[in-house]
């Protein structure tokens, strides 16, 4: 950050900055947080969103612990009390439940995005492996969570889990005794301990390893996810289920959606160990070793056909089995066994048939995508058609949104007064979404005030503010101003020392990072080239990938395999120097300069 930027800070800002510098020697400085100053696709930071949902789960879960009683005959009753009697207990429980689903969903999306974009390469193998473990533990965490309600469904789920554990050769029976104890009383207490302590603490430990050094915290997207969770809780409030009574025959139930795939296999009446332990174990193992069997040098899904086809196959099979696990023959005249059992030959035939279908689909998709890419290269890139609202209207929209929030506040308050809990949760969810939109509007208008957009004031005087904001073709007055326009954290990223681990790939040792070499650039922009050449891919690709992820990733990867990295660096720096007058922000600018980077980088 420039020196001149601090002179007008108020005392509160100075206090925060003082505290912030106080963290200089702590581990947190290893993490680089980026608050995007404009909309970026959430696909790049799904992991961060998953973590945010994990935090939401931690907070609501901690509050639920105040009322939940992990005791055999009190567990269900205490949940019922939370749901019906305790003020806002309904809200807490529904947020907790729907956030658990959201976390599993976001984790799966996160995994597949990283899978298809090949992010587990470039020494991210450890991140990938820990991520898979975190994913497995997340599902176990969710599983233990819905079991400790101790409803009928929970007991069915526990009994299946216990019998699966028991079916493991040699160790199984001992493991079952260790994890489940003996009898219902032990189940509840142990699963509670796993749910609130063992699993979260292991998850947190793995997360410390899993965190990349560059993180994107997008406030509007975080608030939107929070709002969506609340809104879902309001529209689809989760029921309690029936209290478990060993003398009453339980109804036909299915597990949560992330386990119905497994449930489909279990229902095929094949050997329990094979279907319930071996298949999911094989799936998890395959995911774990994917970075080590993927030998493609390129990153894009289009350039890794076999791996992409594997991914597509797994998605197809997950979708089919998840749906199948939910499906129970509604014909009540048949026996329960007949309704439940899935013909194993049918099931496995479908699973096998899905493989060539998925490979064919992948082949088709890659063909189409490459065609589209070739066509796009021929044509001029289409002008980005962004919404251009006059500043005045932005303010009016802002004020309208605040007014809407006032209404939502009052409505939510009256909803609570009248006992309409789900409606109030729904309204608060909307409130969060409105805030998310408002925050986006705020950062948009903030960028507007310092962009090249002509701001017409009330005095009808025109000002042109120097910046690299979107939609301008004017060149910039100076490089330093351009760098200054970056957000603080992104600036920090670019000043970060280059990854030393990359050095050992180079045959010629590079003594200095380019930023310290004498050249015409300011330190910030030169180190930004550094990041653009693929050393700090995580953050840059996050920004650029939504538009054109593939060439970008490719070229980012290129220097990794290059034997003349510093030369490339210099070339790139010059290129960035020359490519100043562009429409994009400096961040996407960097992305573009790398995308223009021809493939000759690769040796």
């Amino acid at each position, binding site marked *: 950050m420039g020196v001149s930027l601090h002179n007008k800070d108020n005392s509160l800002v100075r206090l925060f900055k003082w505290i912030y510098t106080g963290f200089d020697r702590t581990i947190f400085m290893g993490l680089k947080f980026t608050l995007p100053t404009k909309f970026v696709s959430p696909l790049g930071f799904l992991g961060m969103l998953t973590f945010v949902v994990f935090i939401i789960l931690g907070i609501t879960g901690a509050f639920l612990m105040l009322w939940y009683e992990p005791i055999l005959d009190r567990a269900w009753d205490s949940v019922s009390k939370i749901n019906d009697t305790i003020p*806002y207990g309904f*809200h807490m429980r529904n947020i907790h439940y729907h956030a658990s689903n959201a976390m599993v969903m976001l984790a799966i999306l996160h995994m597949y995005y990283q899978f298809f974009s090949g992010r587990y390469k470039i020494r991210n193998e450890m991140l990938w492996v820990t991520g898979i473990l975190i994913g497995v533990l997340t599902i176990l965490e969710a599983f233990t969570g819905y079991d400790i309600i101790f409803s009928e469904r929970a007991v069915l789920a526990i009994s299946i889990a216990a019998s699966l554990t028991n079916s493991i050769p040699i160790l199984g029976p001992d493991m079952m005794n260790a994890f489940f104890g003996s009898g219902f009383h032990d189940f509840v207490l142990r699963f509670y301990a796993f749910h609130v302590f063992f699993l979260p603490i292991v998850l947190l430990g793995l997360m410390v390893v899993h965190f990349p050094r560059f993180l994107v915290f997008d406030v509007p997207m975080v608030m939107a996810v929070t709002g969506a969770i609340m809104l879902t809780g309001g529209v689809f409030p989760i029921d309690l289920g029936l209290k478990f009574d060993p003398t009453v025959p339980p109804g036909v139930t299915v597990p949560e959606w992330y386990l119905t795939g497994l449930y489909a296999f279990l229902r095929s009446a094949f050997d329990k160990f094979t279907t319930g332990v071996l298949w999911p174990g094989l799936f998890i193992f395959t995911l774990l070793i994917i970075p080590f069997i993927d030998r493609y040098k390129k990153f894009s899904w289009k350039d890794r056909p076999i791996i992409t086809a594997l991914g597509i196959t797994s998605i197809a099979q997950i979708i089919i089995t998840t749906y199948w696990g939910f499906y129970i023959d509604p014909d009540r005249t048949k026996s329960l066994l007949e309704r439940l059992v899935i013909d194993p030959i049918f099931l496995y035939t479908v699973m096998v048939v899905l493989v060539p279908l998925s490979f064919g689909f992948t082949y088709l998709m890659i063909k189409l995508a490459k065609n589209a890419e070739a066509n796009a290269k021929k044509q001029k890139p289409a002008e980005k058609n962004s919404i251009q609202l006059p500043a005045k209207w932005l303010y009016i929209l802002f*004020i309208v949104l605040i007014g809407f929030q006032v209404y939502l506040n009052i409505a939510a308050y009256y909803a609570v007064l009248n006992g309409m809990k789900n409606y109030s949760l729904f309204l608060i969810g909307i409130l969060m979404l409105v805030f998310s939109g408002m*925050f986006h509007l705020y950062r948009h208008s903030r960028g507007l005030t310092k962009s090249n957009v002509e701001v017409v004031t009330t005095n009808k*005087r025109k000002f042109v503010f120097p910046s690299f904001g979107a939609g301008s073709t004017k060149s910039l007055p100076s490089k330093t101003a351009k760098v200054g326009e970056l957000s603080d954290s992104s600036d920090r990223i670019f000043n970060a020392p280059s990854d030393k681990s990359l050095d050992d790939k180079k045959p010629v040792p590079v003594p200095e990072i380019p930023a310290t070499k004498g050249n015409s650039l300011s330190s910030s922009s030169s180190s930004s080239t550094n990041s653009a050449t693929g050393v700090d891919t995580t953050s840059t690709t996050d920004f650029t990938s939504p538009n054109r992820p593939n060439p970008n990733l490719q070229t980012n990867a290129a220097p990794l395999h290059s034997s003349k990295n510093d030369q490339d660096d210099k070339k790139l720096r010059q290129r960035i120097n020359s490519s100043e007058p562009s429409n994009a922000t400096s961040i996407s600018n960097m992305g573009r300069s790398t995308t223009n980077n021809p493939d000759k980088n690769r040796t």
Partner: protein
Amino acid sequence: MSQRQPPNVDGGKISRRDFLKLLAAAGTVMTFTPFVDWGKFLPNPKESSEERSKVVLPDGSQANVNSFEVNHAEAIVYPMSEDPVLNEEAFRTWQFIRLPPELGGEKNDASAFRMYSMVCLHLWCLWKYWPDDGRKRGECPCHGTMYDPLTGVAFAGPAALQAPPSNVLPRLDLEVDDEGNIWIKPPNWTPSGNGVVGYGRFLT
């Protein structure tokens, strides 16, 4: 960043950027206002109703002025819960005393009766009333605090040394209907009202 702010063209009025910040602050406040009320999740919602409730003796019958012995005490659960575990807890345990004759226990109205929290104000042991001649007082088994049955004041022992309100037992107000049945009036759980269990009451 403030350096590159536009010159203030509106003549010293609020700048564009500041106005934006103001709007954002207002929006943030509006967003998080509903969560203030969520604090109600923490305290236990009051189970005692606004209506009077019966004084239920351990045998299950309602206490009656015509049948309850003079100079006698029973442990009463209030407020009575559906949950047997909660009914066992000390904070719901009250000592229901019919005063000895010399303190007016022979009258057939509410003034002959007292109902004090059994939780000792010193360290939360359960004290009880001893009707024996020469005692006729509440005594705590732990550190020997003694309570005056007429007022609930600790007159000896460690609780007697505590500053008000922690030297007077919380007390429930009683009323007697036409049939002589005894009822507990809706309490006011404040130190200056019926007192706070385990903390005390101001003697008015």
